[in-house]
């Protein structure tokens, strides 16, 4: 017998749940302003989530997936990216999208069923939210291939959930990324739950990061509630991918403090005690503690920031609500680059029907 392969998975953290540095902090994390910026993005993300849920509860938004408790993953990874990189988000990465420059109004439009919300005014090359779980991993491989062939110094960053790592396309994507050595980083936001299925029932593997090992790419774990280590790890992985040395999979350990979505009731399958315990480790409080202890963050600064974030969200929500819905015929207009002749008649028939309905013919579903 001889041992032909061996592996180990490292787990990194910088700031613990009490706000203490547990490792030498990266340069950026010594800068008060940078930390405040990261903090602000997380607070804004949480304020956004809260508002979105209120809008949903009052019938003004569709089903919504909150990122409560996982803000550090999205904010940390997006903050590490360069503008020219490309984000391929799951449906729970509002924080990442906001940092990338997708507007809060656009995110609301998306969840309100208005496809204009995926026509980002900011990061034009970022991908829309991927709804079929894990499919974005494969799209990221394609984006990375395009970068590699055009010799662009850009990296594709796909964000997936823990549940997504059970899918075939996830494994296939890691494998091709390794085989072709593509500039891609996969970030797994392991929030311990995939709807009602806990992480332990998802796979017998001790870590999700080790799935990288089989694909021959770098795999590591980070404390996903520590925005500093997320930013650092993603930044290093981006650098490595940008140099063409190796793709990377980062498993960020976090926790879904919310229900799966607004139509879910997690109390059906998950104990409240488990959730309360995880509140002790959530990302915003810990960075606040760190800011107070190390950078003299004051109560006034805190309340100003919270107020500003609330105002920003208010403004976006108001603008979203003021927007009138898209006319139905836009579905025809945007389904093909140019509508095939054989479908033009259907468009006309639909318009005629809608006109009839408007003119007061009986109207119901």
């Amino acid at each position: 017998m001889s041992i032909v392969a061996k592996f180990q998975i490292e787990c990194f953290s910088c700031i613990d749940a009490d706000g203490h540095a547990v490792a030498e902090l990266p340069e950026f994390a010594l800068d008060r302003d940078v930390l405040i910026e990261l903090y602000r993005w997380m607070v804004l993300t949480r304020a956004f989530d809260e508002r979105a849920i209120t809008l949903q509860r009052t019938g003004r938004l569709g089903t919504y997936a909150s990122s409560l408790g996982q803000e550090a993953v999205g904010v940390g990874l997006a903050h590490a990216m360069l503008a020219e990189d490309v984000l391929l988000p799951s449906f729970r990465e509002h924080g990442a999208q906001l940092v990338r420059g997708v507007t809060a109004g656009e995110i609301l439009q998306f969840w309100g069923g208005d496809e204009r919300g995926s026509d980002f005014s900011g990061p034009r090359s970022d991908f829309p939210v991927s709804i079929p779980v894990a499919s974005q991993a494969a799209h990221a491989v394609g984006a990375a291939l395009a970068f590699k062939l055009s010799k662009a110094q850009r990296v594709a960053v796909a964000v997936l959930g823990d549940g997504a790592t059970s899918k075939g396309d996830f494994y296939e994507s890691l494998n091709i990324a390794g085989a072709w050595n593509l500039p891609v980083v996969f970030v797994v936001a392991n929030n311990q739950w995939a709807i009602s299925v806990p992480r332990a029932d998802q796979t017998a593997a001790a870590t999700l990061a080790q799935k990288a090992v089989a694909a021959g790419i770098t795999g590591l774990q980070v404390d996903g509630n520590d925005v500093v280590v997320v930013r650092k790890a993603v930044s290093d992985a981006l650098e490595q991918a940008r140099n063409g040395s190796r793709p990377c999979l980062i498993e960020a350990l976090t926790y879904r403090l919310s229900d799966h979505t607004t139509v879910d009731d997690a109390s059906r399958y998950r104990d409240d005690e488990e959730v309360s315990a995880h509140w002790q480790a959530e990302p915003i409080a810990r960075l606040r503690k760190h800011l107070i202890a190390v950078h003299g963050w004051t109560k006034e600064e805190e309340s100003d920031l919270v107020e500003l974030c609330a105002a920003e969200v208010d403004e976006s929500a108001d603008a979203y609500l003021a927007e009138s819905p898209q006319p139905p015929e836009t579905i025809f207009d945007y389904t093909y680059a140019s509508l095939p002749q054989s479908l033009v008649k259907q468009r006309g028939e639909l318009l005629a029907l809608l006109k009839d309905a408007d003119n007061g013919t009986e109207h119901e579903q």
Partner: protein
Amino acid sequence: MAQLTYREAVAAAMAQEMRRDPNVVFLGEDIAAAGGVFKTSVGLLEEFGADRVRDTPISEQAILGATMGAAMTGLRPIAEIMFSDFFAVCWDIVANEMAKTRYMTDGQVTLPLVIRSGNGGGSRFGAQHSQAVENWAMAVPGLKVVAPALPGDVKGLLAAAIRDPDPVLFFEQKSLYATKGEVPDGEYVIELGKANVLRSGTDVTIVALALMVPRALKAAEQLEAEHGISATVVDLRSLVPLDTQTILAEVAKTGRMVTVEENPRLCGWGAEVSSIVAEELFWDLDGPIVRVTTPHIPLAAADSMEDAMLPNADRIVQAVRQLVD
């Protein structure tokens, strides 16, 4: 008779068959502890235990591949694909494997399995969670395709599907889950492949499936009350087998047919039904066959846009009036 919701009828049928046959097992995403994301399997984990009611990882290919392997090895599995759109993720196993294996083993291998799935629109789930895909399944030789509209039929047809020796795709219309209807108590099974004449008329025969059935019935009432037009409504209930006898008999009586389909227009099941009627009944028809469908577009998540696209009672009334008047 009990008044049950459509979703309760799903659970009732599975429970009935699991009590009867220990080889019936059930697997899918979020079906056990959570009782299904559409609450269609509430109580099954408690009654039958975690061996027979199994939450899976998010692995549609493995779910259906395992369903097939288990069916070939003595179990009678029911699999759930949460949203029928995600059949696209695992279609190889359905179309290339399940559908072909009996033939390719010279009839020796049997696949007594059912794949249940939440299908169709009307619930604001958007383009990738709202498709009515029964016509994808109908296009593959070797599959049976069932899509009930009424809670009683859900129970009887799902039970029959579980007992059937061939792979059955069982499409549950998501927007019907909350609807209520009479469901017979006790063991209840309805033969697959029998259409149901829900209403008899003299002027036109409306042929519908799933969510379009209540809309067709509503249209028929409106036609009668407001326009003096008497309509037959046929609920197909199953596309494979297709009850051509009932369709032909009911269309022959009225001389006119309107099909009402939720799927996008091109190659919807109504095109198949229309071609059968055109071939067999051409000389008995008093007017052209008319298809009412969703246009050939993806569905929107926004309510006003989704409502504008799916056929509703008004559209059916209008189509019938143009044909009959």
